């Protein structure tokens, strides 16, 4: 369904990705693990079009999507929770959740561009509640939220628009125990609905709980691509730290 073929990325003289290949099937959850600086986030940003690859291509349902604008890729059904969240701090929770997807009022089929704020607000509240997130109000400025609350907003944003693929870059880093459970639960639900998930996480217990396959990246190359059932926590750790 989603195929990453020989992706390379250089920032000036620095080679960050040196030919990365892997696929994700529909309804599959693939965990992408690797040391800090291995290139995980960079790779994911190439998929969503935020970075331009120096080489290689990304294929979604047979269509090459490398070089397309992030907005279009999002329209094609790839959502991502960015590691730094990419929230608009001055704006409220509702605005952030619906950013780029604002429901607008139509008059005679013509898009007026006027935001249906009441609807957006309702939906935003629903999503936040569904995540079990402790966000005091969807009218609050996101910059005033706590770290975990901000992360919940970013998660809600990625899941509001029934995507085909969800990329999660450390979605639970700032979350409390119960919220983490919710997210893991959610990932399982997504899989059940045929949605693919790429999960980047340093929490291997979580990875083992939800992932079908584990891809390990080291210094910009895939060094292992194993079924969850056929590997062990120790093996994965050794892939990450490069112990063999």
């Amino acid at each position: 369904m989603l195929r990453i073929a020989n992706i390379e990325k250089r920032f000036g003289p620095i080679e960050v990705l040196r030919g990365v290949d892997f696929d994700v099937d529909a309804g599959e959850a693939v965990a992408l693990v690797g040391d800090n600086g291995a290139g995980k986030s960079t790779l994911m940003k190439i998929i969503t079009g935020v970075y331009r690859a120096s080489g290689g291509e990304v294929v979604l349902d047979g269509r090459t999507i490398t070089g397309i604008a992030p907005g279009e890729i999002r329209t094609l059904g790839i959502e991502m929770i960015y590691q730094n969240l990419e929230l608009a701090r001055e704006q409220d929770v509702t605005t952030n959740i619906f950013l780029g997807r604002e429901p607008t009022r139509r008059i005679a089929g013509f898009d007026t561009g006027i935001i249906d704020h009441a609807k957006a607000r309702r939906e935003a509240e629903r999503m936040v509640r569904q995540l079990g997130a402790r966000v005091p109000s969807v009218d609050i400025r996101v910059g005033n939220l706590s770290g975990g609350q901000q992360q919940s907003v970013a998660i809600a944003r990625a899941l509001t628009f029934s995507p085909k693929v969800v990329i999660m870059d450390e979605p639970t880093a700032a979350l409390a125990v119960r919220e983490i459970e919710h997210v893991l639960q959610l990932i399982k639900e997504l899989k059940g609905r045929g949605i693919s998930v790429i999960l980047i996480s340093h929490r291997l217990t979580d990875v083992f709980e939800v992932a079908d396959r584990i891809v390990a990246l080291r210094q910009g190359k895939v060094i292992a691509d194993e079924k969850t059932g056929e590997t062990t926590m120790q093996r994965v750790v050794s892939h990450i730290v490069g112990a063999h």
Partner: protein
Amino acid sequence: MAMEHRTTAPAPGLRWTFAHRRGALRIESLVVLAGLVVAMSLSSPVFLNVANIFNVVLATSTIGILALGATYVIGSAGIDLSVGSIMAFAGVIGALLVKTLGLPWWCAIPGCLAAGLLAGWINGIVITYGKIPAFVVTLGMMGVARGVALLITEGQAIYGLPAPLLFLGQGRPFGIPMPAIVFVVAAVLLHLLLAYTRFGRHTLVIGDNERGARAMGVPVRRLRIKIYMLSGLMAGLAGLLTMARVNAGDPTAGMNFELAAITAAIIGGTNLFGGRATVFGTVIGALIMGVLQNGLNLLAIPTFWQQISIGIVLVAAVWVDQLAQKDKE
């Protein structure tokens, strides 16, 4: 950047109350304006004459219209230094069409607006595709638009416009000066645009976190071009009204107006670094400047003292405004 962040955030209380209005009302600034009006009317008996009030709004309208555009531009973390020059350029084009080329009077209207739009479009294109700071691009446009206006006219104002066109600048339906009416209408429209539409929302979002906006599918480049076009359009409109008001396309019009326009927006609470802006605030900001200028004139304060007092009162006004917005970190 944190400086501005700290000083202009609306108080949480208000923000919550008016949350779904997107903080579009700024009570504090209104208080400052009201205070100024009271002070002025105590010291000058004519100040509260209806005619004088219209005078103030009339005097504010040009800068005010430019400031509306500046609200969007600055809200999107940009800057437009070219509006004063574009205004002159548009006025010259309008006058050229109807006076020199002898086209029907109404041609000046699309003419001025199109001239402004064009200049704004060029600004936007060069900024987005050239990846050049807006400061530099619009500074360049400031020179180019002014230079072209002067060249076309050889430095001479094109004087004497058809009467129907003059009505736009000098007419007073129900005693209200036309430019004041246009200003108010433009302000209401741009308020609605900023507070209730996707375009307005996205404008503030790219001022807040451009990369994030792009990642979420906001068409940042297209949007940015539109924002500069809007600013250019407002400059064209200001040019049209000024031309009609003074009955001439004057290539030297609007000198230094860019600074005044930006100032009105900033006094109105727009964050110089983007992400936060309201049209309502900008209008108040422009009126504060207009009232101040008018009042000092009525009191016949000598110009040097006026410069000093305006400087001090503006700072004081913003200070009171920010005092009123307690409770924030």
